[in-house]
């Protein structure tokens, strides 16, 4: 092997504004990291026992993904294939360290609540998956949008789980009591089994929703086809 093999496509990909926008919106819904790709399960289950923690972790991950995707895309043409994973990990770890300092500077209680899960964003398979499959092959703007979209999709999913768990498990939303003093919290939902149960309920809900939407789309297309043939 005389020359290092780059992991990026030989020619830059040209994209339409719609394709660029798709890079952002895909992660929010169609390719939602939690409800569709089922990635990043460790923080999804561990820190969603309150809405505040879920939002903080989601935003921290969003920042890491957007900045790491940007860095990686910027140098993708220089990175030889053999060291690309090491380089990606280095850049993701740098973004995570910066987030670690920023969260500590913004709010110590949030930093304490998130505990070890901020450093563990490095090992979140979602960040490396987007670096390898998207940022290493696409221009910088699209890569940052992909990171933002995936991160916000991750935040949305974490907030969905956190809402159910906090409301049922503590009777509060963002720390504000929702029910009277006679409400007996369902503590199970704050414990690990509650995380699995809530995740299963959300996955079931989204799968049914997507299946129904697909069926409706299929029926609409069939109706249009019949109308065209009749005409």
């Amino acid at each position, binding site marked *: *092997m*005389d020359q290092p093999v780059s992991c990026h496509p030989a020619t830059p990909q040209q994209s339409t504004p719609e394709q660029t926008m798709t890079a952002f919106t895909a992660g929010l819904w169609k390719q939602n990291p939690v409800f569709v790709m089922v990635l990043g399960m460790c923080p999804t289950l561990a820190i969603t026992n309150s809405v505040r923690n879920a939002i903080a972790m989601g935003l921290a991950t969003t920042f890491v993904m957007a900045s790491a995707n940007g860095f990686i895309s910027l140098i993708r043409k220089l990175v030889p294939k053999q060291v690309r994973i090491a380089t990606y990990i280095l*850049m993701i770890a740098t973004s995570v360290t910066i987030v670690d*300092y920023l969260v500590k*500077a913004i709010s110590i209680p949030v930093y304490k609540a998130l505990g070890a899960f901020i450093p563990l964003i490095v090992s979140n398979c979602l960040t490396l998956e987007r670096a390898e499959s998207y940022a290493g092959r696409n221009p910088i703007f699209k890569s940052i949008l992909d990171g933002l979209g995936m991160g916000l999709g991750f935040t949305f999913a974490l907030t969905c789980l956190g809402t159910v768990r906090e409301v049922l498990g503590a009777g509060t939303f963002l720390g504000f009591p929702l029910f009277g003093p006679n409400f007996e919290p369902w503590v199970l939902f*704050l414990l690990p089994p509650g995380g699995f149960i809530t995740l299963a309920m959300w996955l079931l809900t989204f799968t049914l929703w997507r299946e129904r939407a697909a069926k409706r789309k299929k029926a609409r297309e069939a109706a249009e086809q019949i109308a065209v043939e009749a005409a």
Partner: protein
Amino acid sequence: MTGNASQMIRLMAAVSLLCGLLIVGTEINTSARIRHNQEAIMRESVAQLLPGIEKQIIYGIQPSGELVILPNVETPGPRFFAGYDASGKFLDVVIEASERGYADVISAMYRYSPATRTITGFQVIDMKETPGLGNKIGSDAGFLENFKQLDATHPIGTVKHGAKKNPWEIDAISGATISSRAVGRMLQKSVAEITPAVQRNLDRIQRGQ
């Protein structure tokens, strides 16, 4: 192959340098704010344990047992906070303590009254105990009742829920025995380590020197 390897090494060195610079830059720009936040949380906890406090002095305990006034909360080593009201009258001291709990280390602060040699307040600063069970040590009214007049002249210990007979015993929370026992061990160790220096230097502390 040599060219390939040297290119990879150069690239990794450049990326590492860039990452290092970014991290150092962030550390420099956030360190003052982080210090400020940590100090604010600590001082807020002291104020909650000592209502009416207007001034506080942080005393460090040297290996010889001598007290030194510390400039800020960052200075490591055994220490305590002395609180004074608006007229300069000494209130009590607040002592930090920590102990391994069920999930991780529990950090807390407690109010110690040198005059009566009792613990008269307790507040958890940081813990990762089980939500709904172990984490009740920071909020359960019955458990916190233990620290209204806890005798510190005897070794403090935790007893099963409902079995408290003596003023130096802590009545555990049912279903959170490990966390309750950790609080007992924490206070026992901390009282043995810190309060002798407080009692020895009480005149000086009362004068705020």
